[in-house]
């Protein structure tokens, strides 16, 4: 099964080279989709291997897939597939001259993310995360407008300074491991509990590393790049950044936490992560109440969910399975929503919520999936975000962090109300002058509301869907059922959380 460790790195890179040189022309714009599919398949193979009791390694232990890495790789592939496949209709309108480099950058981005989760070395993971800043920089600035240039500049400066701080932390952790005789950056070695690591250096290094990766994860107060970058990037890129990049940054924080917990106890990072998480929830709540732009609305919702995941990470092992499930649920839902937001932006020509009215009557092909995905996002059951949030809250009360969880719950309710109001404003109601009423589209929900979502597997894009529907249906269906599958999903999550608990 070891080959599945290099396929998610090699296949996207090869496809990127083909996209750049024009060799992928027979594939059309399918290069990034093939890359995502390769990552997803490798992830599933590794999951199968891990559940079979193996731990595939490669390159002298440099690449290693334990349960957590295999799960994260699957998340990267699944979210990548939804974003790139769902974004097909969008990217076809991109300027032809830049189409090749656009596809190539997305493939390289996926390879870098795969490397970040598969590397059994903090330094290598750091280099991979920094590489994602480099690849997404041009994707954020893809539209070449004044505002996208501003967003890209802020993103690169803040992102690289953030990961530079993380590098300083990693250097200190490396220095702390000199006491073991052979300095190392391997996760596997560092998270053993019997190592004589220098506590002062681990404390400083852990704090700096978590601070740096929290910048990349969009946690407040280092979140200011996120709404700008997410609102200016092309929709599929926003989906990838929100669903994959933030989750991988959080994955790095979880791994660092394992190391520091073993040396200086869990209290130190618990305070840091609780403060960061609650602050993120507060910032999201404050700025969602009066939000006017629907892409920025989704960006602030990402800050909200990352904040909630950080609270879960602060709680510790009891909440970790919920946090890991959260990453998948949030990634798939947010990728779906960003893809839809790109289509709405394209057909309506405006990112302002006030200008997009009565979508359900005018464009049901977009409004119905949008409504379902928003319901999943604000935390309605049966979608998995609901179960993750409940899991984190219950675990919080169980471990004596009732105050933190209580504040989080209040902020979640405010955000729920704000998001519901904005969604209703966009979708429900009668069209103002009703010139754009689409009789063909309006007939669809009358037949069977569930049918519009589940049945259409026509390959040609429907006039009212403005792009492929299947990836969105698959994503929403997955988030709806994944929480109910005890075997193998539950087992996998438990084993992945056990990796972070220090036990293997």
């Amino acid at each position, binding site marked *: 099964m070891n080959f599945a460790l290099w396929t998610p790195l090699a296949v996207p890179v090869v496809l990127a080279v083909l996209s750049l040189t024009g060799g992928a022309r027979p594939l059309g714009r399918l290069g990034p989709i093939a890359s995502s599919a390769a990552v997803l398949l490798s992830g599933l193979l590794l999951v199968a291997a891990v559940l079979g009791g193996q731990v595939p390694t490669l390159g002298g232990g440099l690449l290693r897939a334990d349960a957590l890495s295999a799960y994260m790789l699957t998340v990267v592939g699944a979210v990548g597939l939804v974003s790139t496949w769902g974004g097909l209709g969008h990217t076809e309108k991109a300027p032809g001259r830049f189409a090749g480099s656009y596809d190539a950058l997305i493939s390289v981005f996926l390879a870098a993310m795969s490397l970040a989760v598969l590397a059994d070395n903090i330094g290598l993971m*750091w280099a991979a995360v*920094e590489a994602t800043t480099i690849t997404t920089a041009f994707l954020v*600035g893809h539209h070449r407008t004044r505002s996208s*240039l*501003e967003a890209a*500049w*802020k993103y*690169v400066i803040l992102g690289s300074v953030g990961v530079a701080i993380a590098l300083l932390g990693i250097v200190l952790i490396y220095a702390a491991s000199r006491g073991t005789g052979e300095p190392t950056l391997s996760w596997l070695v560092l998270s053993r509990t019997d190592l004589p690591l220098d506590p002062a250096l681990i404390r400083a290094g852990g704090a700096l590393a978590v601070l740096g990766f929290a910048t990349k994860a969009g946690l407040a107060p280092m979140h200011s790049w996120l709404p700008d970058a997410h609102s200016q990037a092309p929709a599929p890129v926003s989906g990838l950044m929100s669903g994959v990049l933030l989750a991988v940054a959080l994955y790095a924080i979880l791994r660092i936490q394992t190391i520091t917990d073993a040396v200086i106890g869990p209290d130190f990072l618990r305070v840091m992560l609780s403060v960061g998480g609650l602050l993120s929830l507060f910032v999201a709540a404050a700025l969602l109440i009066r939000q006017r732009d629907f892409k920025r609305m989704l960006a602030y919702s990402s800050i909200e969910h990352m904040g909630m995941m950080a609270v879960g990470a602060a709680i510790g092992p009891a909440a970790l399975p919920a946090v890991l499930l959260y990453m998948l649920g949030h990634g798939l839902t947010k990728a779906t929503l960003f893809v839809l937001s790109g289509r709405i932006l394209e057909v309506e020509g405006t990112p302002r919520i006030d200008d997009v009215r009565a979508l359900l009557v005018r464009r049901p092909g977009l409004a119905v999936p949008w409504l379902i995905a928003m319901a999943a996002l604000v935390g309605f059951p049966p979608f998995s975000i609901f179960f993750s949030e409940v899991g984190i809250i219950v675990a919080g009360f169980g471990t004596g962090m009732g105050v933190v969880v209580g504040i989080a719950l209040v902020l979640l309710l405010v955000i729920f109300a704000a998001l519901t109001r904005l969604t209703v404003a966009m979708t429900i109601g009668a069209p103002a002058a009703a010139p754009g009423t689409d009789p063909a589209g309006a007939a669809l929900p009358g037949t069977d509301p569930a049918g519009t979502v589940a049945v259409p597997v026509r390959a040609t894009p429907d006039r009212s869907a403005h792009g492929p529907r299947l990836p969105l249906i698959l994503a929403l269906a997955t988030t709806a059922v994944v929480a109910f599958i005890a075997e193998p999903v539950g087992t996998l999550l438990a084993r992945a959380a056990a990796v972070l608990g220090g036990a293997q």
Partner: protein
Amino acid sequence: MFDTVFPQLIGLCTGALLLTSALMVWRHSLLASIRLLSVQGFALAALVAVIGLEEGEAEVIIVSVLVLLVKGMALPWVLAHETRATTRTDEAPRLNPTAGLLTVALLTILSYVVASRLLSGDTSISAHAAPIGLAMVLIGFLLLVTRRQAGSQLIGFLVLDNGIATVAFLTSGGVPLFLELGISLDVLLVVVILYVFAGRMRNKFGNTDIDQLRKLHD
């Protein structure tokens, strides 16, 4: 013989690193800052070479050549190329030179206080010099937040990065070679990207003043 010279060489190299960082805060001309950055790259390479000679490791010597090529030559060359294209090459920073140098002094004292608590168990010569690296990180931050030109912000980022490299070499003899390669490549690419964006900024706005990037907000 080398053992007696070693502490002096370490002191000389780290002194040069701190001096060039402080001078960058003082000077307002972009081209002068870039020359100082190049000197700093050479000093860092010399520091790495000294550590490599002391430890007798060939790998560290290779890293020092790499540092010389990337930080001493390639990055300053890219920056100078970009700067010559701009019409305004001097800076109107938010701090005057006196306040800037005073802040540098305070930051250096701060880093000595922090480092003495962090590395209390380590009595080696190189660990004694490690606060310099921390001071460079803080000075890089200072440059990032007080400068208004795109080029100056880039220099601040590079001083920050040099500081991290200094801490790495002084506390643990540097990270493994393949990592050093990856880190150098990443930094080089970030600078190239920011260079491209600065070029686009000049095409769109006519200058590279960061203060005009204020359109996106809530």
